[in-house]
């Protein structure tokens, strides 16, 4: 690890201030991607702005038709929160399937979304539920947020403060995990919402994306059979040691089917 300056602010304002002063500053949330890459000397921030002391970034609120999760809320809390489990069971289940207990105890929703790992779970829920990402500067619609491989709509220094999920009529998530890392090789989140059916896919492409053909098919009837024969094209999908693009394309259909079957 190269040396860096460490800051532990207690407010969003101070965090943004500390970030702005650094030449190559990074925010530190759960640190599951950042710290290993620093240890491997692949990342060399000048300043690390640790968000662990910012109380206003933590917590879960469920009111009316919305679940709002503070950016620094760890996955484990989302997974075990009774109100979340009642309002959007698929979201609680998704959070409970990220990594292992240690990861879920440290990793946060804000960190996951800011990093936008192509194989992360949360992006599927954010896009699948049509969530709103609130930052210290503005609100960003899920549909406008994911831009590419590790690329989001966030500007330099912009800090996610919370994420608001509208409660759907029904939603489900199915993930096919990488046997080694347990990240998603393909994860599909399906939701029947007031605004229509949404199907979001993570793991398969450079970033989470919506699957229009499946959304259309499910609009005619929200059943597993409706998507069973909707194929996804392999072109443009990720291909690596663990899964070819063709395999991922195949799994998009299989996981969509299973997500619908699991939806509640």
């Amino acid at each position, binding site marked *: *690890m*190269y040396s860096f300056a460490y800051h532990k602010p207690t407010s969003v304002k101070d965090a943004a201030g500390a970030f702005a002063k650094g030449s190559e500053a990074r925010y530190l949330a759960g640190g599951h991607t950042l710290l290993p890459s620093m240890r491997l000397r692949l990342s060399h921030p000048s300043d690390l702005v640790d968000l662990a002391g910012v109380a206003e970034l933590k917590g879960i609120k469920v009111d009316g038709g919305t679940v709002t999760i503070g950016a620094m809320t760890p996955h484990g809390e989302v997974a075990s929160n009774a109100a979340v489990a009642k309002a959007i069971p698929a979201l609680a289940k998704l959070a409970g399937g990220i990594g292992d207990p240690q990861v879920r105890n440290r990793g946060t929703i804000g960190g996951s979304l800011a990093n936008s790992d192509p194989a992360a779970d949360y992006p599927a829920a954010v896009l699948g539920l049509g969530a709103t990402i609130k930052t210290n500067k503005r609100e960003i619609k899920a549909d406008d947020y994911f831009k590419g491989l590790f690329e989001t709509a966030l500007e330099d220094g912009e800090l996610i403060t919370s994420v608001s999920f509208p409660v759907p009529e029904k939603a489900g998530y199915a993930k096919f995990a990488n*046997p080694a*890392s347990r990240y998603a090789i393909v994860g599909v989140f399906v939701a029947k919402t007031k605004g229509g059916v949404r199907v979001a896919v993570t793991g398969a492409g450079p970033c989470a994306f919506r699957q229009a053909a499946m959304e259309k098919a499910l609009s005619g009837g929200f059943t597993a059979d409706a998507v069973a024969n909707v194929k996804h094209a392999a072109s443009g999908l990720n291909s690596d*040691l*663990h*899964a070819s693009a063709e395999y991922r394309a195949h*799994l998009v259909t*299989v996981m969509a089917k299973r997500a619908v079957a699991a939806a509640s």
Partner: protein
Amino acid sequence: MAENGIGARVRRKEDARFLVGKSTYTDDINRPGQAHAVFVRSPHAHATIKKVDISKALKAPGVVAVLTGANMLADKVNGLPAGWQIHSKDGSPMNEPPHIPLAPDKARYVGDHIAVVIAETRNQARDAAELVDVSYEPLKAVVNVAEADKGGAPQVHDQAPGNLCYDWHLGDKAAVDAALAKAAHVVKLDLVNNRLVPNAIEPRAGIGEYDAATDRYTLYTSSQNPHVIRLLMGAFVLGIPEHKLRVVSPDVGGGFGSKIFHYAEEAVLTWAAKKVGRPVKWTAERSESFLCDAHGRDHATHVELALDKDHKFTALKVSTKAAMGAYLSTFAPAIPTWLYGTLLAGVYTTPAVYVETKALFTNTSAVDAYRGAGRPEACYLLERVVERAAWQLGIDPVELRRKNVIPASAMPYQTPVALQYDCGDFGKNLNDAAKVVDWAGFAKRREESKKRGQLRGIGISHYIEACGIAPSAVVGALGGRAGLYESAEVRFHPTGSVTVFTGSHPHGQSNETTFAQIVADKLGIPIENVEIVHGDTDRIPFGMGTYGSRSLAVGGSALVKAIDKVIAKGKKIAAHQLEASEADIEFKDGVFRVAGTDKQKAIGEIALSAYVPHNFPHETTEPGLDESAFYDPKNFTFPSGCHIAEVEVDPETGTTKVLRFVAVDDFGNIINPMIVEGQVHGGITQGIGQALTENCVYDAQSGQLLTGSFMDYCMPKADDVPSFEVSTNVVPCTHNPLGVKGCGEAGTIGAAAAVINALLDALKPLGVKEFDMPASPHRVWQAIQNASRKAAD
């Protein structure tokens, strides 16, 4: 049976420190004034080193020294030696290119050692290592063993044309060819035995130290065999005599074979310590472990099995290409030869077996012994081809095995490939396992799975292995450059406690408990009064260490010999004090007694009088009660067993789940059943790991290691394995005093074939016939797609 004696489920003594984090691993040791080493490693799989410019690194903060291959050559440091010499078919000795610990002229794999930077702190050494400017001229690399001997393949060593280390064979080729020619059936298979990374939980680490006042070196290293390291490094690499070199290996957190070998880092640290006049410490990062620990397996094999019209095996012919990696690791040459070819008769009566092995250099980390070492490769191919034969001929796989199994009545049994099995009841292993798994009821279970859309399969692996490599004279005749005995010293203290100094050196095998059980049982003293010392060449007698499931069979036997000497001496002392003839003294449960009388002396009293020899047979006996012994076995031991796996495949995703795993093993007599079960569980998990998840992959073009972290190299996890159904079928070894055979590797040896045979059984309805490990979901799905495409054509 004594409460804590042989056969008891005694809880592990060593856990008192392990479970509370109070153990001492090499990295826990810090020496006064120590500096820290970081290695500059080649980023290229194959490259000529044009220049190593250390000038910037030398000026970096905290740097003590930067040393390169040129310094090693100037100091006349020799290459790391191979501990076993194999001869080719034509009688020529194997090709042994030199392996200078810091590569002076050419990098031969990604991770090859180019320079070492020594600084005040580890971070400073890392900073400075980035400033070492190495000019490379990259060369084309060969990483796939199947390609390594082809014309035009890049040459790893100039002195090894065709990348050939040796071209070895064993068996009667003419007899095998004749049997194949007149066989009623011939079954052929091509198999790849996938390369594995050992991944001990404790990375390798070392501290080199030199004391100018006494001209004495000390190396602390995470090793399975400190004396072997002292011998190889001292006598062959650095030229340090034994009395000037101490090797200490404290608690070791796993090894699976990978910590048997003498590594470049050990020699560099020891050499550098004298050069810089300070202790020099290094601990591998996990990335370095992936790159530079010796890997396992990596075979490409063609096999043919001949059967007569009655389905009796008449011949087996095996042709294997085995990767050696970039350099010869310590025992690498022995693994795909004497630990592999000799096991190819298996548990069967096949009268003629011929095996040829081409060992080839590749631009990869070295390949050497990894849990099972040659025997898993032998078992895998044999059990795959037997299963294929059953399928091809439409016979029940249990029946085919029964028909060909060596009967217990045929013991001792001379195989056509050098080994003589002393004992074993292979048929019973098979029958017991089939009964436990309910072989006959499988069809019903398959139907039940089918209803859930799942494909169920069942597979057998009927193995035998050879442990406790021995005797030394035979090993020497086969090219071994070491003896393979073991040592033990039993020091009975004046007030009745015992310290055992053993040449065995556990890295997870629980010897501190099992050896103490043997002492408690044989000497009749409480187990609490026994301490087992190991791992320090200044404290223990010359020992060969722990590998090849040898600790109990060889080290335990040495211990029994030393205990017997203690008892024999005790009898002399007791006879004197009880005024009886030595021949009349009996020893039982810690008491010497004049036979048929109530005249007796407790062993504690005898021990005290040995050190306070007031009433003592001075004219015939020396004071003290401290006996040592070396034990050189008469033969290998032959654990055997039958493993049966039941798997379920999800045809939609290709996911394979092991639902059941039944193991019936014969390890001979058992000292501690709980510890044996633990060894079997771990071994099976590693076998399932090879079968389902683990695969070490290098990029064919660049030679880069693609599976260089746990994100890409898939270790089996707790939820990848079922609750195991294990039991034993004890047939005591006939030639060692404890009647024990060894259990450390059996699980790994048997498991992989059982799982893959079960997988292929599950995929039968889809027409999948060929499959190479690992059965990752992607690869299984691909195999299903390929089969359905073929069916459509």
